[in-house]
């Protein structure tokens, strides 16, 4: 097994086994057993059976630092160690399956509702427990070996294979969306998707795999220098940057026309959350104030818009007029909402000025909950409709052109997103942004240097609240009616996840985060049941593995992960394609340190 210690193999293998058991008990495997991805053979359930041993082996085969020397296993050793790990994983899982079968699944079901004979059948490949476990072991060996190879093999090959597999699986998952979009564009999707199995055809699957893999190879082959040059040009030439932005904008505008109304609906929701993310980015990303109650602004924006544009209360007997109501035009009301929300931001910010991070988080959480409770209460029911909510929010029509229809709404939301992005960008690049940065890095010292932390914290809450309320107001227009159920703490957490996933302080990151956390689940409705489970896992994983987010703001990356990011960059550039042994000799004890047991 080369430099891979047995203890590590056993630990990773056991972890993988427990992950498999977890996936079964929580219902993922059962639910997706039949979800065809490619043809009828590659189902999501089977992919889920494959991933834990693969992943465990991938971890096991990593290079380690032993007594100052960096030792990486060769492909042979890697595959071997991986295979053993995979076997351990499968053995553990197989034992669990056998036990479940012996013990009587029905009794297990009394505790774990996902356990069922159908699941047992699936994981034993419908051949009975004995044979099934053997197959599982075989699968473990193969998956493990592949995992080990993926880690220890040539970067170019493994990268390409990974890209190919990822693309194929993703396109398989999007089986309900992509064919429809293609049809809207006038392309016949039959060569790619089979109408019968609703999955990728084998031809399509293999084709995508090859295409994506090839693209990956080409991208890497074009060499480090070319890529650097492209990146540098993009970063420095103003003309190039504007050009790219214009192209991006054009794409964004054309999107709903191309993709049809279902996807446009999802995109509209994405835009709303981009707005929420942008606002929260000002508070958390720029000013460093952890706000867990952001839903308060969202709710305020929504209800205020409703009240200002003549919405009515839903009552058990029909509808009633709210205690306070006006009938303004959307384009007039929206600015009133924004200004009032800024005021609310000041109100919320004022009591929390002196609070430290954790306290601030909990207090803002509480304030968000207060808003929800008030919205649901009988006390304020004459104003906001209580649990039944309101209906009849304006559709922001200009003449006859209403904006509630998904594609139209998308444009309305996009316009405001562009505005918010512009404002955020300008703020961050100004004296105010500088003050926020200083405050975020060292509050006391910033104060000593003349920055009034009181003023800038309040400003952050005000601006963040204003943008967030925009999101709420648009949400009200999108749906046309409101209930307090839409304003749970989950919204705050999701908004925070969007900002964190994308990268704190990064504007492209907010968009990326919203696309992943709102867009993907919107498109992949099958996962709705597990959406929150995945959110939670993603949050933890991101924080542990890559706290700077997907598209990090360079400055932030330094703050959160500086040394490690620099090390990664260094190692990557150094070790890419180079001989591992040469890398060993060239790595001083310094930045990569002997204290670290593993180098990822």
């Amino acid at each position, binding site marked *: 097994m080369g430099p891979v210690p047995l203890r590590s193999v056993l630990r990773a293998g056991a972890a993988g086994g427990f992950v498999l058991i977890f996936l079964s008990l929580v219902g993922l495997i059962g639910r997706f057993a039949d979800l065809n991805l490619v043809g009828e053979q590659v189902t999501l359930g089977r992919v889920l059976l494959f991933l834990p041993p693969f992943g465990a082996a991938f971890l096991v085969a990593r290079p380690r630092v032993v007594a100052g020397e960096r030792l990486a296993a060769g492909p042979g050793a890697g595959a071997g160690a991986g295979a053993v790990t995979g076997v351990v994983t499968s053995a553990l899982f197989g034992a669990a399956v056998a036990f479940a079968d012996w013990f009587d699944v029905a009794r297990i079901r009394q505790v774990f509702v996902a356990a069922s004979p159908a699941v047992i059948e699936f994981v034993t490949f419908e051949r009975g427990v004995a044979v099934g476990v053997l197959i599982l072991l075989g699968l473990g060996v193969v998956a493990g070996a592949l995992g080990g190879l993926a880690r220890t093999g040539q970067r170019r090959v493994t990268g390409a294979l990974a890209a190919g597999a990822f693309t194929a699986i993703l396109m398989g998952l999007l089986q309900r969306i992509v064919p429809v979009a293609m049809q809207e564009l006038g392309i016949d999707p039959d060569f790619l998707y089979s109408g019968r199995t609703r999955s990728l055809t084998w031809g399509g699957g293999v084709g995508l795999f090859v295409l994506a893999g090839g693209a990956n190879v080409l991208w890497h082959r074009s060499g480090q220098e070319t890529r650097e040059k492209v990146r540098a040009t993009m970063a420095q030439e103003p003309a190039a940057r504007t050009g790219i932005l214009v192209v991006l904008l054009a794409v964004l505008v054309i999107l709903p026309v191309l993709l049809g109304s279902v996807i446009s609906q999802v995109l509209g929701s994405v835009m709303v959350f981009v707005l929420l993310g942008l606002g929260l980015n000002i508070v958390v990303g720029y000013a460093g104030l952890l706000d867990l109650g952001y839903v308060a602004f969202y709710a305020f924006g929504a209800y205020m818009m409703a009240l200002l544009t003549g919405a009515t209360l839903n009552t058990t007997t029909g509808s009633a007029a709210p205690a306070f109501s006006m009938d303004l035009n959307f384009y007039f009301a929206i600015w009133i909402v924004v200004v009032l929300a800024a005021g609310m931001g000041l109100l919320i910010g004022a009591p929390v000025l002196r609070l430290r991070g954790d306290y601030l988080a909990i207090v803002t959480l509480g304030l968000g909950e207060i808003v929800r409770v008030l919205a649901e209460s009988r006390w304020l029911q004459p104003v906001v409709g209580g649990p039944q909510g309101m209906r009849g929010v304006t559709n922001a029509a200009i003449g006859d052109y209403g904006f509630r229809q998904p594609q139209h709404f998308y444009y309305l939301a996009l316009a405001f997103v562009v505005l918010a992005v*512009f*404002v955020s960008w*300008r*703020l961050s690049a*100004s*004296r*105010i*942004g*500088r*003050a926020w*940065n*200083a405050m975020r*890095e*060292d509050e*006391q*010292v*910033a*104060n*000593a*240097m*003349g*920055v*009034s*932390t*009181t003023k800038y914290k309040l*400003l952050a809450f005000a*601006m963040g609240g204003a943008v967030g309320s925009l999101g709420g107001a648009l949400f009200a227009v999108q749906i046309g009616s409101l209930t307090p159920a839409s304003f749970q703490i989950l919204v705050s957490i999701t908004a925070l996840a969007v900002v964190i996933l994308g990268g704190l302080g990064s504007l492209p990151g907010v968009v990326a985060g919203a696309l992943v956390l709102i867009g993907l689940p919107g498109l992949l409705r099958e996962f709705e049941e597990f959406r929150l489970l995945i959110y939670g896992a993603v949050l933890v994983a991101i924080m542990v593995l890559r706290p700077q987010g997907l598209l990090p703001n360079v*400055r*932030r990356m*330094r*703050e959160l992960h*500086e040394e490690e990011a620099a090390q990664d960059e260094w190692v990557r550039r150094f070790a890419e394609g180079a001989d591992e042994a040469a890398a060993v000799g060239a790595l001083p004890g310094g930045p990569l340190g002997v204290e670290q047991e593993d180098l990822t």
Partner: protein
Amino acid sequence: MSVDEPHLLELRNVAKHFGGLYALSGLDMHVDRGEIVSVIGPNGAGKSTMFNVVTGLYGPDEGDVLFDGQSIVRFAPNQITRMGIGRTFQTVHLFPNMTVLENAMVGQHSRSRSGVFGAIFRPPGTRREEERIRQRAKESLEFFGSRLAGYRQEQPAFSLSYANRRRLEMARALATDPLLLLLDEPTAGMNPRETIELRDHIVRMRDERGLTVLVIEHDMRVVKGVSDRVIALDYGRKIAEGTYEDVANDPQVIEAYLGTKAAG
């Protein structure tokens, strides 16, 4: 300096305690315009506490602090900075992930005004102000010569060497356009050559920029080389005051340092 013109900085009977520990007690001292005054004393004598009280980090439990005749004890640190007192810290407190230039530009914050409107729309007034902030920041950085000039200014502050970090912190304080500059052990950790260079910088601060400087120092070569006046503290009160020679030979001072006198 006429008798009726107030001292630039004056502490009257200032006391400050933390729990049972009296960091400052009955402290009377003053600094006049154009002076360079050094504050010396053994560790724990209350020197940094005095700085913190003056700059508003916390208020005194007794007594008063007057800046140009006005009491400043109730004001917040950022207000005091705006009034004209700048400072550095005993341990360097830069904004590590901001660039060198940005660190200095923060110093100019209290000398500028543009707000949200200016940030979003960037009218000519805002753009001129930004340019001016940039210029003043650069001037402060270039006060230390080529060390903080050129390409260095775009580098993140955490990448600087120790001595450069100390210089940056001083440049940042300079950028606040102060009347009175408080330097807290500016040469700590520097080698002899850097120390001498810094000593000259301090004098230049007064001569070229008209600043009044109050320095906390341990290195007696610096104290001797820059001070118009020296104040010695121990246990939170003043035990000696005068020229360097007066104070260095004062028996109380010698005793406070337990008989050790740094070569000087």
